[in-house]
């Protein structure tokens, strides 16, 4: 005997594969929004696109309300994701596409505010040919800084994870707290500390280690600042927590009993570390490397405050092109070249690591 409820149920059940609907609505709305944002669609078509986006939201609500609990469950994630993803679509994807379009455009005159899109690849050619040294320096400094953050950060993360005990949260807090002061102020502080008459050089002179630092090319003519070393040092410092935290997270997950088991099997501490802990911590190192290397490669603040004209990085050049030369198409092309090279690095790196888990 069918009840009214059953009849209603049958009517509701009409929506098959709600997850496809949800995904489709999400992706579709995102794409439309991004297209509108990029000015690919303008005028009445844009209005149409926007109404479609709105309609997709309404439709999801309708289906959710009118559908079975099963449908609701399947649609829930898409609904939850929608606001945030739409935001990203409009304010992350659309700008990137705009930048891409600009990189292929030409400015009619230096101070014009509108560039004309004309598939102009010259900007890319210039980006590759004129800024080689800056790209090289950026990747070299970022690379060295990343290695240093691992060297400094890994042991610290290890100690916190395995020997922190009840002070773990406190120690993590201590790691994070310095970064509640402004990035700029910290860099300026280093500028003062590393200055020619500052504590750092004073200390090095006092212990007679100047010759060593000069030989290692860290000091240049008796000064620490306005050198590549100072820039790398600044980068290392500023990105250290981005390496420590991910490594800590992955170390924390290591089951201590595994180590005990290794010990029971007569392994020494070092090989227990090498064979058990290290491999398990690699996802953390991987994540940390990405979070350090990528922003460091595009940085210009450290070079600005701690460097010399011979240490400028690609970030300085891009900023210069945007603000001083007002050459927005070239700056856009340079930005994409930077992103492209970074992506290549990341792909190679993740193949090498064999992991794709970024978080």
């Amino acid at each position, binding site marked *: 005997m069918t009840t009214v409820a059953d009849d209603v149920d049958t009517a509701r059940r009409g929506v098959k594969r709600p997850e496809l609907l949800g995904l489709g609505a999400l992706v579709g709305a995102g794409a439309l929004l991004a297209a509108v944002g990029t000015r690919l669609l303008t005028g009445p078509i844009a209005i149409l696109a926007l109404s479609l986006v709105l309609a997709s939201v309404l439709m999801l609500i309708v289906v959710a309300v009118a559908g079975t609990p099963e449908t609701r469950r399947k649609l829930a994630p898409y609904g939850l994701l929608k606001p945030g993803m739409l935001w990203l679509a409009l304010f992350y994807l659309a700008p990137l596409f705009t930048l891409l379009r600009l990189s292929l455009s030409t400015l009619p*005159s*230096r*101070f*014009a*505010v509108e560039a004309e899109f004309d598939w102009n690849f010259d900007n890319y050619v210039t980006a590759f040919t004129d800024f080689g040294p*800056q790209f090289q320096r950026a990747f070299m400094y970022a690379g060295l800084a990343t290695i240093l953050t691992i060297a400094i950060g890994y042991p610290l993360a290890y100690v916190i994870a395995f020997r922190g005990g009840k002070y773990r949260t406190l120690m993590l807090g201590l790691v994070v707290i310095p970064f509640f002061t402004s990035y700029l102020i910290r860099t300026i502080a280093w500028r003062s500390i590393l*200055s*020619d*008459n500052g504590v750092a050089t004073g200390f090095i002179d006092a212990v007679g280690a100047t010759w060593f630092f000069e030989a290692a090319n860290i000091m*240049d*003519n008796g*000064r620490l*600042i*306005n050198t590549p070393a100072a820039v790398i040092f600044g980068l290392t410092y500023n990105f250290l927590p981005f390496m420590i935290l991910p490594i800590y997270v992955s170390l924390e997950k290591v089951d201590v009993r595994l180590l005990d088991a290794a010990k029971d099997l007569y392994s020494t501490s070092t090989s227990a570390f090498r064979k058990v802990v290290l491999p398990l911590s690699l996802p953390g190192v991987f994540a940390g490397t990405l979070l350090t290397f990528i922003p460091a490669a595009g940085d210009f603040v450290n070079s600005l405050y701690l*460097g*010399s*004209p*011979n*240490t*400028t990085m690609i970030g*300085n*050049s891009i*900023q*210069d*092109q*945007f*603000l*001083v*030369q*007002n050459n927005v198409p070239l700056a856009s092309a340079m930005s994409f070249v930077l992103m492209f090279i970074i992506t290549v690095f990341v792909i190679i790196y993740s193949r090498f690591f064999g992991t794709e888990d970024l978080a």
Partner: protein
Amino acid sequence: MTTRRPNPFLAPRSALSRRQLLVRAGALGAAGMSLPAILAACGSDSDGDSDSGASGSTPATSGSTAGGGSGGGGSLFFENWPAYIDPTEDDLIGTVDRFMEATGIDMRYTEAYNDNVEYFAKIQPLLGRGEPIDPDIIAPTSWLANRLITLDWLEKLPIDQVANAANLRVDLQNPSWDPTGEYSLPWQTGFAGIAYNSDVTGREITSVDDLFDPEFAGKVGALTEMRDTIGVIAMSLGIDISSLTTFEEAQPAFDKLQEAKDSGQIRRFHGNDYFDDLSNGNLAITIGWSGDVAAIARDNPAVKFVFPESGATAWADTMVIPKGAQNTDAAAQWMNFVYDPVEAAQITTWVGYVSPVAGVRDEVEKLDPDLANDPLVFPDDATLANTQGFAPLTEAVEAEYDAAFSAITGA
């Protein structure tokens, strides 16, 4: 990135005498008494402690506490460089407040103009589309004013309402960056020459060649302001910078600078932030601005400024009215006010750059005799003759210069 901004170091030296005068001047200002009469009546005191200078004081209070003005009204927004006007602090009444009292105009004064290039990037999206920006007056350096004039982003100044414009120094009339003189009035002027720390160099410096002396390798600086750095070097190579029209003419200067940078002779390019480096010996010698050095020199007499034998560059920061500004009448009144030698003198004693107003020297002498004799603030004619202003460049040529300079500064 560029700036040359003055240093309020000059304030303490003349603090007390100026302060006494200005207190009375300010107090009586509201009653409409003329300042020269007050100055004559009070004379000057000079003794005792100095106040600690500018940190923490503001150039103006906005309107409400300025006391009742004499009728009128209207508003004005002037966006200027930092530390470029005498502030209201302790018992002193700053120029902006005195102006508000005298005219009843509600004036907003901000110091957000940090850098010509940055500021241009800010206003370009608006003025480039024909939309107005907030400020009624801004203070670009002469070359930027020239660019704004060429782009037709400025209103003509209501000169007929600025009677005191007649007080403009003769050498600044119809300047190369504004040949008709209709778009700009200088705010302050100055020079770029050689600044050095005699303790570090061990000797007196007179020539630009000393910048390239291997003895100072790694302790030499230069300004990020292209026209000052290239200008000074070009003049030392015998190039006349006031008549430049192409990039090739200045190429030798760029080449020389490039060489110095590649070899590590130049430690870094800087804006105003060379004080501590020069003072503590990180930099032995650099290209610097006259007003800055006058200020540091008082704390560290080893730091000196010299007009190079081959000549120094002369620059001016100018008051211009952006297109679409609403309060041109109020702007005219402001310009008239600050071109009164008496008001201009108050500004000069605090700011320490070279005033564009003729007759300021006599007024400053009454306030601060030492300052009146400072050759960096009141250079004699012979010195002035050995300075040149950088020629205004066309858009295309300027782009070449900028690109070449950026390549050297490493950007």
